[in-house]
């Protein structure tokens, strides 16, 4: 009887663990700006723009793309390189107190080497022209121009004549 009770309790505990593992995974946008797309490809229409720190619920994954749901219930696709998947690797240690959790992008947002450190470095090196770097960063090629370039050159999703 005692053994049966113990088994039941352990079974219940295991069930909680399994349910927890099956629960939704939340991914967090780790780049300045990006978008959720209708289909898992860059030339698919953008459904909504996102910024660093935005949280999404992961639904599935396919060829480097993650199907996600926004907090407002919108479903679409985002490339895996744009998001961080917070993880706790419990298998790394028997002691949960020593969990090998990787510092997440969210926890690090704005910390470490940041604008304040760059400003401090800049003040020591006034000979460096950061305005040129800012100008370089401002040049962004629009998605429709990249698509036209690929189409014209029969490249990528729009070509491949062998």
């Amino acid at each position, binding site marked *: 009887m005692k053994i049966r009770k113990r088994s039941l309790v352990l079974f219940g505990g295991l069930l909680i663990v399994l349910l927890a593992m099956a629960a939704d995974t939340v991914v967090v946008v780790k780049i300045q700006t990006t978008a959720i797309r209708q289909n898992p490809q860059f030339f698919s229409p953008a459904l909504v723009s996102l910024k660093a720190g935005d949280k999404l619920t992961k639904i599935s994954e396919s060829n480097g793309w993650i199907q996600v749901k926004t907090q407002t219930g919108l479903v679409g696709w985002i490339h895996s390189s744009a998001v961080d998947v917070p993880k706790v690797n419990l298998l790394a240690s028997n002691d*949960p107190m020593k969990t090998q*959790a*990787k510092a997440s992008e969210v926890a690090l947002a704005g910390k470490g080497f940041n604008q304040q450190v760059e400003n401090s470095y800049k003040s020591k090196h006034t000979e460096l022209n*950061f305005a040129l770097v800012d100008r370089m960063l401002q040049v962004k*090629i629009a998605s429709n121009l990249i698509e036209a370039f690929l189409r014209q050159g029969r490249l990528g999703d729009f070509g491949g004549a062998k």
Partner: protein
Amino acid sequence: MRTLRAFSALLALGLLLLASGCSVVQQGTDVLKGTGAITSDQANTIKTTSETIRSTFGDISEEEEYYIGRSVAALILSRYPVLQNAALTQYISTMGSAIALYSDRPETFAGYHFLVLDTDEVNALAAPGGLVFLTKGLIKRCQDEDTLALILAHEIGHVNAKHGLQSIKKSRLVDAFKLLGTTAIKTYAPDTLAKLTGIFEDTLGDIVGSLVERGYDRKFEYEADGLAVKFAGRAHYDTGGLTRFLKTMVGDSSAASGKGWFKTHPAPQDRIKEVTPAITALGAVKIADARTSRFKQAVAGLK
């Protein structure tokens, strides 16, 4: 009693898993603390561990990589003037942005950006995060768009594999993470900022030293060649463009080549030998006429 402890442990494990799915360790520890499964001190230990566990280049955040890349770019731009040719810059930027979409890391913190440097030196450089530079001398060596595409893909390969960040000395990272790990605030006090700025400066020195002066480890160059073939191949470029370019460098002892590419890259014949099997496996690709004509138009004004 033992059963109860086992149940509590499983419950704690489940809650921690739930917490890790919900957000990050911080939230998970709060949940556990709330259930009484762990004490307040233990929760703090987990939080601190999660913040200080950073130890390798892979732990540098996207945002930190962006700030490192910006300063590396500023240092590159202090050595070379920018070519004032809007049409060519637009052409290179569009091609580079297109290839990046077919890479393993199409999205970086602030995206990929490309610039042409006004020098006859034959060189290409990529700052962490995706700031890519090609020299006029290198572009003049390319016979077609596909050759240029493979060079851009090679640089995008360096960014994908974070070779710039990998050239930071391990001890430097340990110092930085030690200092950063114990600091939970975003605005640093003057003494911490001074120390961080010093480490930042040394970090830039490690990267620029590899990028411009010593060159990357040979294995990084071979890896970038392999990634170039992979990414440009996905974009349906003729990956033979890489060997076409490398062949122009074989036996070239001119000053223009010696200052840049030759000084920082393995011998071209070794690279050809290493990368040829991957190119052969992909097979030949017909270069569309539109690519040939737009390439000629883009480089026509180069002197």
